């Protein structure tokens, strides 16, 4: 009987526990705390945080429990991540939520969404310089797109082993947008620039909004076909929203589907961060490069907005450039916040949504380009 007890004890988490599991469990608890108590992207951080707890229960290998064991339930759920199923479903929901009116009213702001993607490619170079393989460097660079589903999608295709650290880095930085971006924004703009008021956007007709997703899809996917899974779903979701007659489907896409995909995506990505797999020097490098990528993307957007002002008759507030990094709608909110610190009557949120949603399209194209260049 003693032997039985001892054998059972040997299979418990208390016996199998490793300091790395404890570290990851603590990180998971911090994520849950930040989500619940500090309201930092709770819909993302809580599933990821709890997923970290799930993934870091020390288990006896061979029982088919761990996410990396072929026959486990978690492995099947994780299949949606590794095969790139969940991110397009999230994009479908995002499309069904997004209102492209401000972008349609001032199309020139779309270029800011492109400028911010420069950070992706600069980080790609940085990662190569640090000795990462080109596939890994691409996956690391995409963190600068500040778009969780895109980062996971590209990593699943190019460097599946890095999904855990890249997803956690991407979502962490997205949650920290209000902390990371403001200092860069203040550093790169003068008070006079931050005070610039934007012109009222024109009224956008329903028909324009309906046609936009079709044009955007055809144009971008003809140019970068690898962006098809993400952009296709984004534009399809948006068409469902704008077509009105498909409101019932749009409602499902922006509620049930995106919620289900987010829960499964967050939880399994969290569970993939098993201490022994996650706590490596490489992960530290990814976190450092991810932060660099995010900062560079923000800076590129801001600088490009300033360059545009040299040529534009009606100046734009360069803070809008920072919203080009996707992270919808947080980076747009940060633009509003920083702008109102200088002038509480200046409302930039609506205008910042234009580069913000353009950033989503830009990062999806960037992911498509990197994918096709690496394969």
């Amino acid at each position, binding site marked *: 009987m003693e032997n039985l007890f001892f054998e059972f004890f040997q299979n418990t988490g208390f016996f199998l526990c490793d300091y790395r599991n404890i570290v990851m469990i603590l990180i998971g608890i911090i994520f849950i705390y930040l989500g619940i108590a500090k309201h930092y992207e709770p819909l993302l951080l809580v599933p990821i945080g709890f997923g970290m707890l799930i993934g870091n229960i020390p288990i006896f290998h061979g029982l088919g429990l761990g996410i990396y064991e072929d026959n486990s339930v978690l492995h099947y759920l994780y299949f949606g991540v590794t095969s790139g199923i969940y991110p397009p479903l999230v994009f479908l929901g995002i499309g069904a939520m997004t209102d492209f009116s401000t972008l349609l009213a001032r199309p020139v702001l779309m270029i800011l969404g492109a400028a911010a993607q420069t950070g992706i490619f600069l980080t790609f170079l940085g990662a190569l310089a640090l000795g990462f393989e080109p596939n890994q460097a691409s996956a690391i660079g995409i963190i600068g797109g500040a778009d969780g589903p895109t980062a996971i999608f590209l990593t699943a295709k190019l460097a599946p082993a890095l999904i855990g650290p890249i997803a956690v880095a991407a979502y962490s930085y997205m949650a920290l947008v209000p902390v990371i971006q403001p200092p860069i924004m203040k550093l790169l703009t003068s008070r006079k620039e931050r005070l610039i008021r934007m012109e009222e956007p024109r009224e956008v007709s329903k028909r324009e909004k309906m046609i936009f997703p079709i044009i955007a899809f055809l*144009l971008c996917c003809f140019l970068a076909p690898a962006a098809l899974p993400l952009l296709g779903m984004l534009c399809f979701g948006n068409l469902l929203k704008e077509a009105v007659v*498909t409101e019932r489907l749009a409602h499902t896409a922006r509620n049930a589907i995106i919620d289900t995909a987010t829960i499964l995506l967050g939880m399994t990505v969290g569970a993939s961060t098993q201490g022994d797999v996650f706590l490596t020097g490489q992960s530290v490098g990814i976190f450092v490069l991810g932060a660099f990528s995010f900062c560079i993307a923000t800076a590129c957007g801001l600088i490009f907005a300033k360059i545009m002002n040299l040529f534009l008759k009606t100046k734009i507030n360069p803070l809008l450039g920072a919203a080009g990094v996707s992270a919808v709608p947080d980076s747009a909110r940060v633009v509003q916040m920083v702008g109102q610190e200088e002038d509480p009557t200046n409302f930039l949120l609506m205008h910042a949504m234009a580069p913000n949603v353009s950033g989503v399209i830009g990062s999806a194209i960037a992911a498509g380009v990197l994918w096709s260049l690496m394969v």
Partner: protein
Amino acid sequence: MYGLEAISANNGWSIAVVGITIVFTGLVMLSFCISRLHRVIDFLEKFPDRKERAAKKKADKAMKKNGGVPAFTGAEKESAKQYRLLARTMADHFSLPRLLHLAEISGLDKPHSRLNMLLEAGIINPDTEGYYTWDLDLYRKIVDRADKDK
């Protein structure tokens, strides 16, 4: 391999330049297209305008002949039709606030009073669960018959 040597060996410079160029090209092209979009739509919308005006005149005349059921004006009938289209996208027992919301975001004229008109005419009726149903027969009597008279 590290540093600039690693970037060159992996063709990093070319990939970065090509990548940035494609992203910019895509978004600049899209930006250009959508900046022209509203002009194209405005141009195309001029044609049906005339047709619609003529159709409205005809509908108004036909309405006068329509007896026994509530008489809708041409604009009211158009609203009823649009409401019908929206209601068709919903379940048989649909939500009234949802229908009103759809009407608002679709840009229907006077969505509140037109919805009230349909309620008063008995085209939209409440069930016992807080949802509403569409009386298709009455709707046809009021709206479709007048159209046939044209």
